[in-house]
C-alpha cells in the first residue's frame, strides 16, 4: 500500500507541477540555508583542526583584547565576540620582551599591513600583506616551495615571500622569485614562494597563506608607521605549556603596565573560540532557516487543505471501495512528505551547486557529509509530517457520502 501511496503522491505532484514547486519553495530555501550553513561551519572547523594538528600542541597564540572569560582555575567559560573588534594592543615591545622569556623557544608576530599589492602586470586588493619574522616557517610548519624565506638579518632589506595565489594571480606563474612587488608604493623583491596551504580565515593566523605577502616585521612597521599586530605566535620549549603561559603572561603584564588587555591561548582553547564563533553563526542562520521552514510548512498545509477540499469526490470514491480512514490519512501524509522531501532534495542539490561555486571562487571549503544530508532529509520529513497531519486528518474524517457528492 505504501508504494501505492508514493505513486499516488508523485502523480499528484506531477499533475500540478508549478503549484507543487511553488509550495516547496519555503522548504527548499530552509533546507538550502541549513545545509549550506552547517557545511560551511563544518568545513571551517575541519580546516582549523587540520592546522592545529599540523602545528602541534606546544604553539601558543597571543591575541589583543580579552577574547575569553575564565574561571578561577583558568578554564575558558565563554567567548567575548566583541573583543575581535578591538584595535590591537600588541606592540613590537611585547615581541622583543617575549624573545627573552626562558620557557619560549621561538616568537613571531603577525602584523597586518595592507590588502593591496601591485606588480608591473596588475593589482590585487584582497591580499594579506603581513609583517612577520623568520621564525614563522618553523612555527607554522609552513614550507617554502621556491626560493627562501627571509632571514633574521633581512630586517632592513626589502624582501617579500608570497603565497601561491599571489604568484598565480599577479604573475601568472608558479615561481616569480626575483620579480618585484609593490606594497604601499614601495617595491619589494620576491625572495620565495610558499607551498600551498589549506588555512582559512578562522584559522590560526586568521590569514590565508595562499593569498599572503610576507615582509620582515621591521619593514611592516616602517610601512604603517606603528604596527598593527594581529597576533603573536610562540612556541614553548617544553610540551607542558602551562609554565610558558605563566611566564608569557607575567612578561606581557609588565609591558602592559599590569593591564591585561591580551589573551594567551592554547591550541585547544583557540579551537574552542573558533568553534564558539562558528556555532553562533550557524545558530543564527539556522534560526532564519527554521523560520523559512515554518513558513514553508504552513504553505504546504494551506495547499494540502485546499487539495483535500478539491479532491473530496476522490476521497469519497476511495472510501466507498474500501479505504479505511487510516489508509486515507497515510495517503495524504505521504503526499505532504513527497512535497517536503522533494523540496529537501532540491535544497540539497542547490547547496551542492553553492558549494561548487564557493570552492571555485573562494577559499572556503564547505564539507557536506552523510550526517548533514541525513539531517536535511530528517528535517524535511519532520516538517512534512507535522504540517500534513491536519489536512490528512480532515481527509480521513470526511463522511463518504458527503465526499462522494463533492462537498
Amino acid at each position, binding site marked *: 500500500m505504501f508504494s501505492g501511496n508514493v505513486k499516488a503522491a508523485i*502523480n499528484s505532484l506531477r499533475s500540478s507541477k508549478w503549484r507543487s514547486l511553488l509550495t516547496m519553495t519555503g522548504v527548499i530555501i530552509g533546507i538550502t540555508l541549513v545545509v549550506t550553513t552547517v557545511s560551511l561551519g563544518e568545513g571551517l572547523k575541519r580546516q582549523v583542526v587540520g592546522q592545529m594538528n599540523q602545528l602541534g600542541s606546544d604553539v601558543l597564540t597571543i591575541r589583543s583584547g580579552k577574547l575569553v572569560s575564565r574561571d578561577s582555575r583558568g578554564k575558558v567559560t565563554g567567548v567575548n565576540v566583541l573583543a575581535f573588534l578591538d584595535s590591537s594592543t600588541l606592540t613590537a615591545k611585547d615581541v622583543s620582551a617575549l624573545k627573552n622569556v626562558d620557557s619560549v623557544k621561538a616568537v613571531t608576530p603577525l602584523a597586518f599591513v595592507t590588502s593591496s599589492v601591485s606588480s608591473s602586470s596588475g593589482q590585487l586588493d584582497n591580499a594579506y600583506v603581513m609583517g612577520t619574522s623568520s621564525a614563522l616557517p618553523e612555527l607554522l610548519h609552513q614550507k617554502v616551495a621556491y626560493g627562501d624565506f627571509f632571514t633574521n638579518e633581512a630586517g632592513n632589506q626589502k624582501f617579500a615571500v608570497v603565497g601561491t595565489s599571489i604568484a598565480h594571480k599577479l604573475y601568472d606563474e608558479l615561481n616569480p622569485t626575483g620579480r618585484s612587488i609593490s606594497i604601499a608604493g614601495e617595491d619589494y623583491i620576491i625572495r620565495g614562494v610558499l607551498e600551498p596551504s589549506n588555512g582559512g580565515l578562522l584559522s590560526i593566523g586568521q590569514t590565508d597563506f595562499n593569498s599572503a605577502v610576507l615582509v620582515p616585521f621591521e619593514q611592516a612597521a616602517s610601512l604603517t608607521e606603528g604596527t598593527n599586530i594581529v597576533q603573536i605566535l610562540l612556541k614553548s620549549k617544553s610540551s607542558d605549556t602551562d609554565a610558558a603561559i605563566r611566564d608569557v603572561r607575567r612578561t606581557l603584564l609588565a609591558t602592559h603596565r599590569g593591564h591585561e588587555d591580551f589573551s594567551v591561548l592554547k591550541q585547544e582553547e583557540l579551537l574552542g573560540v573558533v568553534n564558539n564563533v562558528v556555532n553562533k553563526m550557524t545558530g543564527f542562520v539556522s534560526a532564519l532557516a527554521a523560520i523559512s521552514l515554518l513558513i514553508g510548512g504552513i504553505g504546504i498545509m494551506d495547499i494540502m487543505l485546499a487539495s483535500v477540499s478539491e479532491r473530496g*469526490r476522490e476521497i469519497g470514491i*476511495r472510501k*466507498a*471501495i474500501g479505504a479505511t*480512514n487510516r489508509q486515507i490519512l497515510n495517503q495524504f501524509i505521504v503526499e505532504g512528505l513527497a512535497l517536503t522531501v522533494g523540496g529537501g532534495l532540491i535544497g540539497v542539490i542547490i547547496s551542492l551547486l553553492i558549494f561548487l561555486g564557493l570552492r571555485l571562487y573562494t577559499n572556503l571549503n564547505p564539507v557536506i557529509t552523510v550526517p548533514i544530508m541525513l539531517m536535511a532529509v530528517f528535517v524535511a520529513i519532520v516538517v512534512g509530517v507535522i504540517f500534513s497531519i491536519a489536512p490528512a486528518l480532515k481527509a480521513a474524517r470526511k463522511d463518504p457520502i458527503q465526499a462522494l457528492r463533492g462537498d
Partner: protein
Amino acid sequence: MALIGLREVSKIYGFGEASTLALDEVDLVVEKGEFVAVMGPSGSGKTTLLNIIGLLDRPTHGSYLLDNRPVARLRQTRQAKLRRDRIGFVFQSYNLIQRLNVLDNVALPLAYKGMTPVKRWRAASDMLERISMRDREYFLPRHLSSGQAQRAAIARALINKPSIIIADEPTGNLDSFDSKVVMELFADIHRQGNTILLVTHNPELTRYANRVIYMSDGMIVGDERTAIGSLARGARRIYFSRYRRTAEDITAGVSALMHDVPGKEITDKPKRRTPAKRKKTARRSRRKVLSR
C-alpha cells in the same frame, strides 16, 4: 439464508424542524443470488437505502444484518473492510479516479487489501479481459466513452469478488446501446451467483431483475417477484402512466406558492383536460411503447 436483513430501519437527516425522514421503518430481506431492482420517484429514499446496505451510511434506528451479523453499529474501520471485501459499488457517474489509468482504477480495491502491485495489476488485467476492455488498460478515464467508463467501474466493483453489487442508476448517463451492454454485463454477473441491488428510474431495466421493490416517501410500497425477461407489473404501470407535467400542474404549483402573498390572485383558471383527451394521450403512449 438471508444475505441482507433490514429490520425497521429509519434514517433521519437534519435536526428539529429541519429534519427529513429519508427512510421510514423499512423492513427488507434479500436472499443470496437475487437481482433486486429498486424503483421509485426522486426523493423516495432509494439511494439512502442503498447507502445503508452498502455501509456508506448508518441507520438512525433499526438493525441491519449482513449474513445474519449486525453491521450497522460497527466501527468505521470494520465497515470499510466489509465494503472492501463484501460490497462492490457502481455509480451513475462512474466515479473513476481521473488521475489513475483504467488498470490502476480497477486494481485500487486490491491495493487497500494490501496486495502487491504486480499481483493486483495481473488480477485487474484479467478482470478487464473478462469485460473485453484489456486494450484500454492504460487509458485515462477521460479517454474512454461513457459505456467503457461504466464497464471499467463495474470491473472495479467486481475485482474483490464481492457478494453484493450495489448499482445506483448505472445506466443514467448512458445511451440505449451502452445501457444494454452494461445491463447484459450485470445479467452475466447475476448468472454467476452474485446478489445485485440496482436503483433505476427506467422500468425497462426491471426485465433483468427477478425482484422489484417500489419505494415512496421513504417506505417500501411494493415488493414484486418477477421472471427474468419480463417487465414487472408495477413497473409496467409506471411505464404507461409516466408522470407528465402539464401547464395545469405548473399553474397549480405557482398558485400554491402565491397563496400566502396578499393582494395577488390567480385570475386565469387553468384549462382542464377532458377525460376523452386523457384516454387519447394514454393510448398514444402505449402505442409508442409497442412500436419499440
